Structure formats: structure tokens, C-alpha cells
């Protein structure tokens, strides 16, 4: 069964790509945010089952947004999707409490990761 998902990314092209990938697997993208502060507000409003989170964004970055979301909802399911080097940042994502870290150029792997959750 598909999950309700909030996509957080400052790039509209990336949001579109991720959205198409998720929709192809039957997931329901219920919200899109282009920075961290929008993500925190939309998370409270929409209460999605999963959040895909970019890291580098103008304004509040993805790590800070994830911290704020998780401080309000310890069960929040966040997967980081970033262009940054996985070896350098996946550990930090794990420490924050994210369920996973994927490089954007392998964004289709997110479907496998969602199935495993």
C-alpha cells in the first residue's frame, strides 16, 4: 500500500523527478516544500507518513528541518536525498534519527528503501 509523502527540495526539477518516481510505485505525494521552514510547517499540517529531505537549501537546511520535525514527532520517518557525499553525511543523518540516506543520482533506490521500512 502506498504511503503519503512530503517532498522537501529547493530544486523544482528534483521535486518533479522524485514525485514521478514515488507516484510510479503507487505512493501519494501530498505536499512539496522548497526549504526547511516550509517543511516543518507542512509536516505539522499534513502529517505525512514519510518525508524525503534535501540537505542544502536556502534558508533552513535539511538537517535543521529534520531535527525540528523529529523534536515534535519522534516517530517521523525521514529519508535524506542529497547530492552530498554519502560517506561524509550519512552518519550525521543517522544520528539525527533519519531512516536513511540516499544519493540523488540513485534516487530510484528510494523505492526499495521505503519497502524495507
Amino acid at each position, binding site marked *: 500500500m502506498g504511503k503519503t509523502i512530503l517532498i522537501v527540495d*529547493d530544486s523544482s526539477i528534483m521535486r518533479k523527478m522524485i514525485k514521478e518516481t514515488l507516484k510510479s510505485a503507487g505512493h501519494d505525494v501530498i505536499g512539496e516544500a522548497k526549504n526547511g521552514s516550509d517543511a516543518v510547517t507542512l509536516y505539522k499540517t499534513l502529517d505525512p507518513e514519510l518525508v524525503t529531505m534535501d540537505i542544502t537549501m536556502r534558508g533552513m537546511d535539511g538537517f535543521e528541518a529534520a531535527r525540528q520535525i523529529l523534536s515534535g514527532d519522534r516517530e517521523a520517518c525521514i529519508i535524506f536525498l542529497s*547530492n*552530498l*557525499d554519502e560517506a561524509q553525511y550519512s552518519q550525521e543523518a543517522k544520528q539525527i534519527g533519519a531512516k536513511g540516506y540516499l544519493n540523488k543520482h540513485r534516487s530510484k533506490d528510494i523505492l526499495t528503501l521505503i519497502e524495507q521500512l
Partner: protein
Amino acid sequence: MTQTLDNMKIDPKTGSRERPGEIGHLKHQFLWCFLTITLVTMGVSIALMIELGSGPRLTDAVNPGNTVDFLAALRWRIVLGAVLVVIASGVVFLFLHARIGRPMEKMAAAAGRMAEGCLGATIPDHPPNEIGQIGASVNGLAVNFQEVLILVWNQTEDAITKIRRTTRQMTPGCDEHVSPDIMVDLNSAQQDLETMQMMVRSFDLYDVVINEGDVLTAKRAADTIN
């Protein structure tokens, strides 16, 4: 329907974003400016026409005893009217400069830096009219462009790693069946990929640095160097 915080409608087919009722702000602002100057000019003209009056007052003015006073009063009215029109034009100029001129100057400066490859430059996305929308759209274009550049970097980095690994395995002496043409093609492909990476490196990216092949945030890269 997907929701965004800025209440934009997203076309499910094209993905294009539109904020209802926002288009036309600039047109309204121009209309208000035109109406302000028109009303002030018309008001001054009507006041002068009333001052001139109709037949009897003009007949009085022609009377040699009244002409000087009448013309003096009329002259002051004309000067006052001209001052009012100049003040109204000045207010309209300041308004247009604040709403259009200054944002356009900032936009031109930032767009110039972007055109030179500085994708960290940000165009102000205000005032809330079409000028601000252009700023927000150009910022969005820069963000998307950076995304594509980093994707190109990551893909080429992966491909170069694979080519190097393959080349090592096919070194003459290790595998005698390898055609020299394959090695030439692999070297050529690697050079093409490296040229693409050189192009990516020529851009200044927003909050991201390419450090020894890895894509890092600027802060992390600075910490690594220190």
C-alpha cells in the same frame, strides 16, 4: 492535489506553479500612477478654468483697472498648479523607482553574477509583483541548474572510477586479448568525462564545494581544510 506552503497551484501534468490572482500587480501599479498624474493635472486644469470663469469674469478682467490683479492671481494659480503636478510626478517617480527601478537594478547585478557562473548569487524576490516573480523564477532556475551540475559531477565521477578500474584490469600484460583500440576508446571517454568535470568546476556553487572529488557543504569543506 499536492500542497505547497505558498498556496501555489501545481499543474499535475506540467508541474508548472501558479499563484492565483497574483498576475497583473504591475499593471495595476502602472494604472494607479497614470490615474494619479491624470487626476492631479485635471484638477489643476479645472481649478484654472474656474478661476478664469465664464463670460462676465473675463469681461471684468479686460477692464484696464482689473487686468493686473487678475493676471497676478492667475500667475500664482498656474505656479501652484505646476508645483502640484511636479509633486505628484515626483511621488509617482519615487513609487516606481522603489517598486520597479531599484529591484531591477539589484536583479541586473545578481543576474550578471549568475551569468558569470556564480550560482550563489540571489536575486531579491520582492516586491510582490511581476518583478519579484521574475526574481524568484531566476533563483529557481539557478537552483535547478546547480542541481543538474552536481548530478553531472556525481555521474561523471562514478563513470571515471569505473573506467579506471576497467583500465587497470585490462592493462597489457594482464590480459593479452585486449585490443589496443579499446584502451584508446576508454582513455578518450575518460578525457571527455574529465572535460565535463572541468566545466562543472568552473561554476561557483551555492553552499556546496567540490573537494577532492567529494561534494561537501561549504562549512564542512572549510572544517576539512582547517
